[in-house]
């Protein structure tokens, strides 16, 4: 059973978005990933805090999501694999990630902790960059943005198996990666 009426309630959604954002920002800051030095350290492969935070979030999120999905309380929100979109966009994003030193969520957290370059450089730049994308979108939306599309959404759907046959091995692998990082002292 999904909370359909809550999902349609615009006022409630503003409040829910704000509260989830506050929690998200709080945990990002406490986890250290709103620090420029921590993110650059991850991209230079000297500090694995970002990987630790992300994998922990995915482990908890994956188990919780598929538990709720079993009760039909959440829905899948995925697109087909589209290489023209995620590979090209992902590499451009990666370049910006390194030059700015934050990603879209952590840059907002960095503003909250007082980084002025995140506010006047990062946030302003992101709005300009998104605006530039909107400007080129009509020229690329039927071409490169749809190149390399495959009818593939989630791994359990592709394999045609019960999701837990994929969730459990994934969780084990992710815990294994975290364990290896601890053992190697990274």
């Amino acid at each position: 059973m999904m909370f359909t009426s809550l999902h349609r309630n615009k006022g409630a959604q503003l409040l829910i978005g704000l509260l989830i954002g506050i929690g998200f920002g709080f945990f990002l800051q406490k986890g250290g990933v709103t620090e420029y030095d921590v993110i650059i350290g991850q991209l230079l492969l000297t500090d694995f805090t970002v990987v630790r935070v992300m994998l922990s979030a995915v482990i908890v999120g994956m188990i919780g999501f598929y538990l709720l999905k079993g009760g039909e309380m959440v829905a899948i929100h995925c697109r087909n694999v589209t290489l023209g979109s995620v590979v090209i966009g992902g590499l451009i994003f990666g370049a910006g990630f390194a030059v700015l030193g934050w990603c879209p969520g952590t840059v907002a957290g960095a503003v909250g902790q007082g980084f002025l370059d995140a506010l006047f450089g990062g946030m302003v730049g992101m709005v300009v960059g998104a605006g530039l994308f909107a400007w080129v979108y009509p020229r690329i939306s039927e071409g490169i943005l749809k190149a390399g599309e495959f009818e593939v959404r989630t791994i359990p759907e592709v394999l045609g198996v019960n999701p837990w046959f994929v969730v459990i091995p994934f969780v084990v692998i992710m815990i294994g990666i975290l364990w290896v990082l601890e053992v190697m002292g990274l």
Partner: protein
Amino acid sequence: MARDAAPISPSPFLSGLKSGISRDRHHPAWWRVVHDAGAICTCRRGSSIRRTASGGVKMMDILTAVRWSPYLAGAGIGLMAILSFFLADRPLGCSTAFAKTSGMIERVVRGEQVDTHPYYRKIGPYIDGSWMVVLGIVIGAFVSASLSGTFDLTWVPSRWEEAFGSDPLLRWAAALIGGMLLGFGARWAGGCTSGHGISGTLQLSVNSLIAAICFFIGGIAVAMVLFGFPGV
């Protein structure tokens, strides 16, 4: 004391990181989790954790800690992602909000014709729950940094200063260019580190997994070039 000799019933997830913390069986399980969490935080006043008379850690010490274990912070983020699917029927993401903002600014400049633009028609340039998430992140991080006394106005991050000097104008220009690439790339890819990297990956989306890998390939390559391959 007999009380201390009582068998340990630890919370396994946290006590694996620092053993011998959960000795208390006079408190419920949730209390021990919070208790352990405090013990794996780096606290504001050095590493010594103030303990209450009963030997526990004050709740305030957890909130005022400068850093939490990345596992605990990550688990909290995972919980927020679940709540977003459950309460808002939407993946937790951030980059759409920036596109909505650029659309709202264009509406101020160019008027209502923005709503007929193919991209803004698609994303809806209005303040909604997903826009509020980014506002919330700023507030949440501010609260966290204020509680730990680490809020500090900074123009040039220290690692940047080490490599490129303390000129705020140079850092500002780089942040602006970086932000533009990030905003452009995130919209091209249809999501960011949270939308694809966390929310997509946790649904086992193949598209999001490829996106997340490309974020880090691009990021690692450019960072290595910028900082001259340290440690390689």
